[in-house]
């Protein structure tokens, strides 16, 4: 986690840096791709309604679906584990690796794995852990955390990556993306084929068949579930749908929203371990179903956020994310959905300020493939933060006084007169360029017009009223 403890602190350290610029640039590209793909298929709107219905249905019947999924997966020869929290999940994973004598571990991108901080745990046990998604591999080499759920090293330039490869992999420096790709492919190919165990996330589980679906573009998600003896899948407990055809609908909306693809390159459907005569595939498949705060979200006002399919579209659409970048959120889950998920999973302390990192412009809800009402929930969380007395004193009392003033016409009129008089001290030419105190942040990037001497009401009484 980053050093400053508030969103504002982290964001101020990032805004204007080359990292934030790189994120903004990269995200625009995603937005264009998504728009193109949406234009091409007017039926996408219908697809979104169906995806939403499918996800909400699954959440309503979550306990039943999970039980059915577990039964089906066990019938197919797989193992199911239940983890109440992050420590549980880490312990289950390392126990499996220990029992199967797995020392070399390959991973495909998994947000849940970051959430439970699995890598540090496994490395502390002396295991050899390699991230295999190209972006995650680069982040791991750099000792950095991912800054975007779809493009983990959106914040790095090709020169950064070239220097990193030269330093860590001992290859001659190049900043040609194609060469860098070849280097990573050659390096990781050996790692894949020699690995004992593969660890992945789960994009979607299918209750009726006990299958898990893994989506990747690079093929690493297939290699880590094909070559090693053991496959461990980390699954947030909400990532489930009833039927295979439901999964198909959600997968189509996922790819279009994430990267503008019609489908991701590899949609990998795994139903248990290798069957007897199969020429490849793991001997053991373990799915760890993880709660870690999710039941708390499910029980409350923000339950709808569990319908999220992790496409990243809301990040790309968000003006705050684009200005500050993913690291400003200080959590694995960034952007608009992260501002709801993070306080939900880990509590309001110290995450209460994330719901305030939004302009409430509504762009996130507009692009969300499952139409999650993100702004509404951000407001609910803001309200909760205020009612728990978490806001800074000036803001808390300021808002209460403001509310009291606006509902009383005579107080309002008095306040306006004072505002006009006081701003006369700092305004020039009708504009306030710098406000004192907490207002300073507001005027640091824009000017504020001085309040009018006469209100519209007063003007109307004098000029038109009779």
């Amino acid at each position, binding site marked *: 986690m980053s050093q400053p403890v508030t969103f504002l602190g982290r964001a101020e350290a990032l805004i204007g840096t080359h990292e934030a610029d790189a994120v903004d640039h990269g995200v625009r590209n995603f937005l264009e791709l998504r728009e193109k793909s949406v234009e091409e298929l007017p039926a996408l709107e219908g697809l979104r309604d169906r995806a939403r219905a499918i996800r*909400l249905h699954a959440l309503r019947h979550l306990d039943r679906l999970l039980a059915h999924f577990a039964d089906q997966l066990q019938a197919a020869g797989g193992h199911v584990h239940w983890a109440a929290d992050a420590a549980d999940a880490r312990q289950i994973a390392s126990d499996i690796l220990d029992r199967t004598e797995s020392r070399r571990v390959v991973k495909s991108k998994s947000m849940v794995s970051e959430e439970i901080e699995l890598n540090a745990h496994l490395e502390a046990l002396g295991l050899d852990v390699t991230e295999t998604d190209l972006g995650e591999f680069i982040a791991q080499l750099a000792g950095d955390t991912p800054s975007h759920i779809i493009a983990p090293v959106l914040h790095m330039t090709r020169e950064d990556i070239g220097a990193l490869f030269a330093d860590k992999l001992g290859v001659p420096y190049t900043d040609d993306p194609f060469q860098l790709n070849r280097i990573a*492919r050659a390096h990781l190919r050996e790692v894949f084929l020699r690995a004992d165990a593969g660890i992945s996330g789960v994009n979607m589980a299918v209750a009726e068949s006990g299958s898990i679906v893994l989506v990747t573009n690079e093929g690493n998600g297939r290699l880590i579930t094909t070559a090693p003896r053991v496959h461990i899948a980390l699954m947030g407990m909400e990532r489930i749908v009833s039927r295979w055809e439901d999964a198909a609908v959600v997968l189509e909306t996922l790819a279009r929203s994430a990267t503008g693809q019609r489908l991701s390159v590899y949609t990998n459907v795994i139903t248990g371990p290798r069957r007897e005569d199969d020429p490849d595939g793991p001997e053991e498949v373990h799915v760890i179903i993880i709660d870690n705060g999710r039941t708390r979200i*499910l029980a409350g006002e923000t339950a709808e956020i569990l319908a999220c399919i992790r496409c990243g579209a809301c990040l790309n659409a968000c003006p705050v994310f684009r200005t500050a970048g993913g690291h400003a959120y200080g959590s694995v889950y960034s952007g608009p959905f992260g501002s709801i998920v993070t306080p939900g999973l880990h509590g309001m302390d110290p995450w209460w300020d994330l719901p305030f990192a939004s302009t409430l412009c509504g762009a996130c809800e507009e692009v969300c493939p499952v139409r999650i009402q993100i702004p509404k929930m951000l407001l609910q969380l803001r309200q909760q933060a205020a009612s728990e007395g978490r806001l800074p004193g000036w803001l808390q009392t300021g808002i209460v006084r403001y509310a009291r003033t606006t509902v009383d016409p005579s107080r309002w009129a008095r306040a306006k007169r004072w505002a006009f008089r006081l701003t006369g001290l700092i305004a020039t030419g009708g504009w306030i360029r710098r406000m004192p105190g907490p207002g300073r942040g507001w005027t640091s990037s824009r000017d504020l017009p001085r309040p009018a001497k006469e209100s519209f009401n007063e003007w109307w009484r004098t000029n038109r009223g009779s």
Partner: protein
Amino acid sequence: MDRDSFLTRVGRASLTSQLPDPASLSADLPELPPADLLILFRTRSQTVNAVVHGPVTRHGVPRAVTGIATGHDASSFMAWDELPAPGVPSALQAVGMERVDHLVPSERRVDHNLGYRDVGVGITGAEAALAESGSVVLVHGEGRPRMASLAPDVHIALVELDRLDRTLAHWARKNPTLITETANLVVVTGPSRTGDIEQQLNLGVHGPRHVHIVMIK
């Protein structure tokens, strides 16, 4: 945590859950006639950098596949045991390509895996092709290794024309139980790709750099 306490906790949380009611369901995309499906499949495959060949007759397949493989200067190949057209492996061997066998993995798993390291071409037979996304569906199992579409630099998928469907959702609805009959099924949409370095498109990250789809009449 044990299963029962985990699920009880989830069930209890659902009781107080405040979830909105979903909107009514709108219909799926309509079915398309076969001729339109093929046209759509060609265009969409092209967008994802896959190359569509044919339709060729069943007897023309070995020749088409050999042409593709030699075009990539490949010296070895692996192929599924059963393909929708006969004579492909022998035709490749006839032009001097070495066949890499797939065996059920033994105790020496790593040696088994390393055997696939340098295979040039992998040949598979698709269960279905999806027009809207330009994808092929591969169902793995006995004699049908996953590695054939994964380890080599070039993947050639053979698919019969009447196996074209519109979208994954269409196909999934018609084949609801297929995923329980196999430990692994994969939908392949073009060659392996990444945009992780400055969002520049890079093909062949971990999987094949070239995907060819041979349509069979």
